């Protein structure tokens, strides 16, 4: 069953455009939504959540149209926007007391369970929480109202490696029972190497590819060769960098012929991200 089904979203701004954005997230999985800053991750997320007016396209969550059932669906969606704080001078307790009234499935027991699990003191003010704790607090809120889909925009940005790792463990714990799905945007690709099941890659407002993580990585190859070898594959490369030893470049696996004799390896998500961005810069 699909938890999130995004179909052909188009949205035009004066200086930026989302073009035909489509991807699907199955129930019980983590999808990493990657792209460099300004690629369209947050705009896509805001379009999913009906915060912007899309020019065309559809969003279905848990089988229902977001445009038609926004209120009911928001009961089942949890959010965390990294880097955006709300009512920082209020205590967590005050904020929770206010927020919980909006959710019909709110469960105090679950809430206190997660506060203990995340070691959060509800008498602390939001301003006194570390970046990681703020994300954990958002998760505790989302899980306490029974959210089935967690939409997390850059939740790990600004976190130290230990806190990031801790948070990634939590994400994986949350999907174990198969009820919760997570859409997790980031430009820190190493996080996704650790925890994502699916990858959706956006660049310049367009989805480049959306599929299972290993399949995603296997669909590209990272080539390392000499300057002479570069001439043979240059036209087929997505983009490349030259150095004193030769070149490093990214190619679609289907475009590569092993008879070239060029050293090829499976790229990391970061390398894919970097070479696609480089391609865009060349075209600009």
């Amino acid at each position, binding site marked *: 069953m699909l938890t999130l089904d995004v179909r052909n979203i188009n949205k035009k701004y004066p200086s930026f455009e989302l073009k035909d954005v489509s991807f699907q997230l199955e129930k019980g999985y983590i999808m990493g939504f990657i792209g460099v800053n300004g690629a369209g991750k947050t705009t896509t997320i*805001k379009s999913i*959540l009906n*915060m912007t007016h899309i020019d065309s396209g559809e969003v279905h969550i848990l089988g229902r149209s977001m445009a038609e059932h926004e*209120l009911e669906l*928001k009961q089942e969606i949890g959010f965390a926007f990294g880097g*955006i704080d709300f*009512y920082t001078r*209020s205590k967590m307790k005050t904020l929770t007391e*206010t927020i919980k009234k*909006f959710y019909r499935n709110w469960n105090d027991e679950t809430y206190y369970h997660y506060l203990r699990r995340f070691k959060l003191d509800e008498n602390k003010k939001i301003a006194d929480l570390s970046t990681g704790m703020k994300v954990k607090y958002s998760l505790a809120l989302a899980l306490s109202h029974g959210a089935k889909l967690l939409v997390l925009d850059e939740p790990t940005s600004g976190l130290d490696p230990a806190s990031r790792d801790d948070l990634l463990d939590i994400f994986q714990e949350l999907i174990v029972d198969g009820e919760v799905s997570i859409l997790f945007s980031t430009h820190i690709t190493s996080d996704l190497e650790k925890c994502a099941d699916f990858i959706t890659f956006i660049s310049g407002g367009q989805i480049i590819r959306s599929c299972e993580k290993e399949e995603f990585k296997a669909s590209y190859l990272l080539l390392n060769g000499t300057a002479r070898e570069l001439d043979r594959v240059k036209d087929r490369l997505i983009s490349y960098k030259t150095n004193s030893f030769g070149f490093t470049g990214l190619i679609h696996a289907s475009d590569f012929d092993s008879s070239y004799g060029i050293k090829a390896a499976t790229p990391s998500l970061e390398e894919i991200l970097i070479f696609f961005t480089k391609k865009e810069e060349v075209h600009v």
Partner: protein
Amino acid sequence: MYNLVMKDIKLGVHPLFFAMPLLTGALMLIPGWIYFIVLLYFCWITVPNMFNQFRSQNDLMFTSMMPVTKRDIVRARVTVVAGLELLHIGIAMVFGLVTLRIYPNFDYYFFPPNLGFWGLCFVMLAIFNLIFIPMYYKTAYKIGAAILYSITAAMLFAGVVQWIGIQSPVLSGIFYGTDANSRVIQTCILIAGIAIFFALTAIAYRIGVKRFLQVEIQ
């Protein structure tokens, strides 16, 4: 809607602004003052501070993430603003009664705090709402121009009616008179003022909703 109003009251509006009606209302005890100013303090101090607080605490995004309609978001905010206005005017009226008691024979140059004057105050706040709310909801976060135009309009209204009240013998008779006939007319002005306040605030709410539906949440 109720939850949204409570959210604004608990998180967005500083408790000081619930004490402000008492503080500004006490200014009614100054004999012969321009009493319009007492209510204008709400527009000058409470509104800008309150809305700046909403903006600095990212209230728009915070609220938009919750299961609420955009219509209810506007309705709740207008309810909070109008509620505070009624609190200001209600408490000022009580202080006004005290003023009339403790200075019974005062010779007023500016409007005395009688029912007719309060009717004009309701109209002044109605004008403020009619301009402020629709202008604010063009963006739902920029308040500068909305505040400037709405306060200017409210002050112009107050200044002009006060000037006419002094210059025109007919209006002077109505607003400064203490005879039974004048009191009846003053009561009618108050009722009309209240009706205008609710009507214009309702119109402001409708325009606000229409505009807010077009706003993209930043």
